[in-house]
């Protein structure tokens, strides 16, 4: 079966080196890929490709204006000797051209937009290779930090999304506060997260590295602090991360949950918890937290505004899905 997304990917590399150059120039002083112009996954790459196609098609209409207008005002300026026909106001040929060409361009654009939109629907699951199941992650937007729950691994993190490379991601997202926008530019689409609602997003990373993620929807005075890092690692490093977090991560109990629900930045949250589980490995580590124990169905309870089932932490409920976990692979 012909997969439109795949189709978009194959051509992007060759045709749009110019955009690639632009990307390097634009983000020259950046340490990590911060934009889809320097894509790190198939979705972002397809979006960059589409951007190029759209600019190309639209230029058919736009460029003549930019080129001809200066020519017109020089040639027909007052005092020039060019033809002057004050009563001329209609030409069938010109009308056919100026209606026809934009119409054709819009038809072409419409085809591009239709196919691209259906192919890049955030809800559409990505089928990686046959034997790799997508990694499920549940994302909760708080004021002003992000909580990532790995339901199959029974762990959770704040402001740090660790994922294995080349493995599709299936994200379910909600907000515990007002509307926010979840976005990792280098990997792909943004999607809104809203209280009591669950949105979905599917991403995949082609390269390892650290990619900034952020909130795009203003939600108060801590808004600009609400960024996180998406760390793409190889399989063994991911496994290592899961194991370490399970063993040495904090417990997400009622006290921590209250602090999460309060309006504070990641840094303030960590400080208020004096967290032993905080990962201090990086310079931004004082904003991140890892949890090895958390209540079962925490995400659903947040969506439903229900009190999390704190008793499930001790009863081993954190790993309720461990038996069916795709982490069985070594």
């Amino acid at each position: 079966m012909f997969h439109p997304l795949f189709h978009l990917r194959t051509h992007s590399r060759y045709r749009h080196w110019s955009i690639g150059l632009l990307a390097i120039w634009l983000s020259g002083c950046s340490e990590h890929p911060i934009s889809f112009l320097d894509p790190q996954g198939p979705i972002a790459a397809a979006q960059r490709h589409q951007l190029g196609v759209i600019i190309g098609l639209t230029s058919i209409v736009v460029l003549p204006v930019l080129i001809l207008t200066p020519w017109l005002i020089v040639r027909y300026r007052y005092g020039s000797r060019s033809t002057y026909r004050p009563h001329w106001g209609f030409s069938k040929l010109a009308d056919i051209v100026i209606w026809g060409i934009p119409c054709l361009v819009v038809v072409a654009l419409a085809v591009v937009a239709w196919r691209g939109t259906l192919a890049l629907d955030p809800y559409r699951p990505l089928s990686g290779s046959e034997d790799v199941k997508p990694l499920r992650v549940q994302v909760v937007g708080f004021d002003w930090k992000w909580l990532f729950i790995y339901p199959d691994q029974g762990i959770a993190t704040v402001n740090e999304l660790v994922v294995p490379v080349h493995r599709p991601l299936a994200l379910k997202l909600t907000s515990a506060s007002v509307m926010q926008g979840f976005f990792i530019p280098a990997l792909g689409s943004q999607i809104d997260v809203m209280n009591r609602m669950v949105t979905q997003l599917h991403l995949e990373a082609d390269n390892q590295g650290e990619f900034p993620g952020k909130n795009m929807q203003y939600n108060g005075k801590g808004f600009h602090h609400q960024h996180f890092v998406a760390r793409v690692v190889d399989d063994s490093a991911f496994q290592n991360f899961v194991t370490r977090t399970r063993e040495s991560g904090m417990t997400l109990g009622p006290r921590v949950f209250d602090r999460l629900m309060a309006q504070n930045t990641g840094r303030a949250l960590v400080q208020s918890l004096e967290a032993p589980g905080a990962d201090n490995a990086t310079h931004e580590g004082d904003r991140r937290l890892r949890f090895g124990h958390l209540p079962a169905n925490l995400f659903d309870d947040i969506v439903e505004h229900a009190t999390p089932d704190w008793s499930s932490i001790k009863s081993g409920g954190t790993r309720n899905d461990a038996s069916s976990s795709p982490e069985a692979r070594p």
Partner: protein
Amino acid sequence: MTHWADWMLGRLDWSALPFWDAIVDPTTKNIVNAIIASGAGAMVILGGLIVVGVLTWTRRWRWLWREWLTSPDHKKIGIMFIAIALVMLARAVIEAVFMRLQQAFGLDGGFLTADHFGQLFTTHGTIMVFFMAMPFLTGIINYVMPLQIGARDLSFPVMNSISLGLTAAGAAIVMVSLMLAPFSTGGWSGYPSFTESAANPGAGVDYWIWAVTLSTLSSTLTGINFAVTIYKQRAPGMSWLRLPLFTWTALCTSILMIFGMPPLTVATALLALDRYLDFHFFTADLGGNMMNYINLFWAFGHPEVYILILPAFGIFSEIFSTFSGKKLYGYGALVIATLAIAVLSFTVWLHHFFTMGQSAHINAIFGIATMLIGIPTGVKIYDWMLTMFRGRIRFSVPMIYAIGFIMLFVIGGLTGIILAVPSVDYQIHNSLFLVAHFHNMLIPGLLFGMLGGTNLWFSKAFGFRLEERWGRRAACCWIVGFMLAFFPLYALGVLGMPRRSVAFFEPAYLPWTVAAMVGAVIILVAMLCLLIQLWVSVRDRHANRVPGGDPWDGRSLEWSVSSPPPEYNFPVIPEVHSRDAYMRQKETGGGAHPRPDDYEDIEMPANSAMGPIFAITGFLLAFGLTWYQWWLVVAAGVAALIALIARGYVRDTTRLIPAAEVRRQHEAWLATLASLTPVTRADEQSAANRGLPASPIEGAVQ
């Protein structure tokens, strides 16, 4: 005593003062912000005191009341609308400069607090849309449209005055929020649940709701007024296909106002019910959901975009045709394109929230509908280019704005198409790319149109031309400043910088934010140039007088009367025989200014205090609602109702101007005309231009 004060003041207390935070918590940042905020408040108070002082000193209160505030004359109301727009423009541009400065220093810091920054982008957006753009275009349509269709006034002159009053009240509410802070931080679109009382219990959002509501009511009434006027008051012979293009766009804009404003009324009213009476439309709990607000807001918001842009299109059509000395190319196509844009604009609102999670099919359909608007818009651009083709282009100030517009607007069109593709929008939604895009549409599109229109019609309103040199400097600064301020934002947008961030942590953004700051400063210089232009023009008004009324060799009827026109516009209602009615009059034998055989008494609307009454009661109502001063709400509401009912009992609503008086004024003007020397277009920008063009146009073929 305390109880009494509580009852009087509602929830208004000391903490509303703009420097309160600095007193309670005197950190450096708070003190800096308090100085900026209090400075702004002081400027407003000082400005108000100066105006009051000058009026008192020159004993002009009675004059102000009689000649302006209670006047039902569409020309004066138009001028007052534009005055509001210019004052608010100045404030919003200064706010923009502060925001750009903040972001230039915003790498992990800056000097503004997050709350202050939030208020800045909210007031900037709210003012620019509701209290700059809307009054500006309303003012210009008010002034020009009745003159273009050969009418004496709008259909409902007193309602026009009420519209002005409501807009003024809304603008005053936004201004008062500088002194009794804070304003909302929810952005000009005010999305819940951020703006619900659970997240934002203060007075800020309420200020925003009532200011916007006043503006909405005003615009709805204005829309009805304009549409009915164009339907019913056209001069004999002014058939639909003879209407000047500006009037066509005015008609489409007013239709959009009539049908586009109600969704906003509903959205803000439901939000107010949530906030005041504990309803649950957009709350997170008890069955509410905020998605409907976003849906309703943009069902207004998208037609609104075309409310803003269409009149500017009309003005540019007039400018291109007038300053190319040529008939407009493709009149029919331009009319059809305008109508198509108006109708299509109701079908695209979802493209403002592609990322909310609806199905890909819905996204794609609305995306394609959005692109369809590109077709008529593109046709218009090419029609204007073909209007210049084989013309004689004169670079007077309006034409400079128009050329800047046509070149920059297509770039905005390009980025608009990019945003209209949902899958790409997922990358740039809510980023600075979006901010750059809509500024690219609204600054060259709307603002250049309004400023060009002001330069074009100023002489009609005041009898002397605006000074050219400073005008040209202003136009060039606007164009350069715009490019420098907003093209970097495109780059920042594709680099993923969210809009509305007070600070950022990505060093790659810094060069771009600094460049944008420089652009903003150039725009500030452009504002100064405008001010100097106005000053110099008033100073040299005698040198630049155009008593002939037709300084640009105009084509439509507004140029056929004196500058400024008599209060009844036309001594005798003209009969129209073709498109470009006045041009034809000049070209054919009958003479540009035929002497009428006889004059008739003219019935004009009498002055009415309804406008000021509604301005005051509207303001007090909104103020009382914002601060929970219920006694004020009741009192102002009852006063407005009584005024409305009492107005129904007034029978003395017209004033008669005797035929002899009309004859005297018109004969005097004809005598002035006879004393003027006609000038060719070569002398258009010189002091020799007294508003009487030489005919025929030189060097024409065919």
